[in-house]
């Protein structure tokens, strides 16, 4: 799994019927967004541990994870005053630039899926799924043991890890 930056649109599809509620997707999201990319260091090392871009919902036997949907008409983009939230031209993904973020949290108010996590300490946006733009394959999809989250291309065809 090289660190090849991806340049094509892609989308994560959630299949709640297969989510077994292990939350391994969150673990690997954290690792993928850590400096070291090493699971032990990410959790036990010095660096502040990143926050996962995933929301996990569970009631009884039903569970699923939710990441940013990278909406075509993204309300968070409209709401953002500083342009910290922006759309990547090549991939169409909605990304967040922490440097520009002033912590007004308008995006959090606007997101209909509630998938932007606030950072109360730094008063910024703490995390939002960036579809692992740095990786060929999103970490959560790669590590979901039950293929409860899968990756599709623009046409909706499944992309499997090579």
């Amino acid at each position, binding site marked *: 799994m090289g660190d090849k930056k991806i340049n094509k649109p892609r989308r994560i599809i959630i299949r709640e019927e297969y989510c*077994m*509620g*292990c939350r391994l997707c969150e*673990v690997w999201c954290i690792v993928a967004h850590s400096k070291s990319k090493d*699971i032990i260091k990410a*959790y036990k090392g010095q660096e502040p541990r990143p926050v996962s871009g995933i929301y996990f919902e569970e009631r*009884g036997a039903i569970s699923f994870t939710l990441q940013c949907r990278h909406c075509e008409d993204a309300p968070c983009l409209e709401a953002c005053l500083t342009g910290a939230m922006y759309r990547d031209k090549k991939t169409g993904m909605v990304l967040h630039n922490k440097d520009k973020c002033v912590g007004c949290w308008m995006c959090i108010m606007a997101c209909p899926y509630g998938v932007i996590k606030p950072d109360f300490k730094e008063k910024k946006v703490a995390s939002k799924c960036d579809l692992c733009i740095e990786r060929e394959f999103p970490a959560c999809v790669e590590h979901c*043991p*039950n293929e409860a989250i899968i990756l599709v291309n623009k046409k909706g065809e499944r992309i499997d890890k090579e």
Partner: protein
Amino acid sequence: MAIPKKLREFDVVRDDEKCIRCEVCCRMCANDVHSYDAETDKVSADSAKCVGCHFCEDVCPTEALVIKRNKSQIKRNANWKNDALGNIIKQANTGGVVLIGMGNDRPIRDYFGHIVLNASQVTNPSIDPLREPMELKTFIGSKPDRIELVEKKSKIKNTTEIPPQLELETPVLFTAMSFGSISLNACKSLAKAACDFGTYWNTGEGGLHKDLYPYAHRCIVQVASGRFGVDREYLKKGAAIEIKIGQGAKPGIGGHLPGEKVSAEISSTRMIPEGTDALSPAPHHDIYSIEDLRQLIFALKEATDYKKPVGVKIAAVHNVAPIASGIVRAGADFVVIDGIRGGTGAAPQIIRDNVGIPIELAVAAVDQRLREEGIRHRASLIAAGGIKSSGDVVKAVALGADAVYIGTAALVALGCHLCQRCYTGKCNWGIATQDPYLTKRLNPEIGAKRAYNLLRGWSLEIKEMLGGMGINAIESLRGNKEQLRGVGLHEKELELLGIKHAGEAW
């Protein structure tokens, strides 16, 4: 008094250096072994509850966990082993029958392990299956007594009437495992793999769930003593019908699916009221003789217009050969023999471990008997119970079987680690459970792929072994005992198996 609860079977060993406190193990173990304490920031395990299913070991993202067998350190004793002691403690606690799942785990002689195969050297050429055609196609069904040819205007026409047949791309089928004993996702996995590969799966006595209708054309529908889920549509939907008399794991014993497991889905599939115990009587109450069996066979043939093979499954017991002969004479198109190592979802351990005979001896005896009586062609023979590898398949066929059923091997492909606790309904792998929290762990897309891979891998290996023997069709291996030799077997055992000892030439 201090009451001994049970002998601890496993130690859950956690490498604290590696453990990142993700709590995946805590969430995933249905036996509530792991727990996280926020106060001490430690994950700990109650090893006494661990059944050794290895699920946590596999999902732990840092490989911090190892499940180890813990032989509680009782004084060494050649007669009194942990198993015996453990069961007595259990029974002193409960006063009940000790239940168990999966197949016999006692070291009953594995004859397959004492048989070796032949290969061609110099005097007859071996065949490279990658370069030359190699046929594994197998037909299950009654074969005609003779070929009838008619000459008409100097053209020869074959007028032989061929009874209905199942066409298999490989001599391996998935054995009877009911929806109820295993989850619907497990059924779907095997059903889809069977359809994709071109073999068959079996409903067991659980009826045919409507979600499995798309796979019904490659399904053998079972008619067992409880007659669950049996109606005209069920019989018509299947590709073949199997009358289940017995099962290798529990010969002479019926079945019992407790009411708690009879959910709405299971109740509608089995056609019994929700929440009631599904009891399969030990015998079929309308079968007390070969003549009675014949009536049922023909009733089923009548109901399906003589278009489908009807077979009979029995457990391998002492009298297996004459019983099989009776079954063939009663009109069965195939006979299934299930040996003492056959699996189950639940059986009294004392029965599982002590009743029945090994499949190798049973198949050889049945094949021999049917040949002697000149009726071997009238029915196909399927061997079941303890087929662990493609080598076992080849040996079973050479001992006289047409094909084999696999159950345990298929479940292992789906994740099963043989913890033998199927009867608890807490299978962490989502196989032997109806708990929706657990069943969704088995994604049938992945399951089907894995079961398919198993069939594919074994088939490739079977071709390699056949090629080595210089045989290019599995048909030519059936009952070809010259390809087998025993190693370390007694004269009587060799005689019963019908094979020579290693070192003896043709």
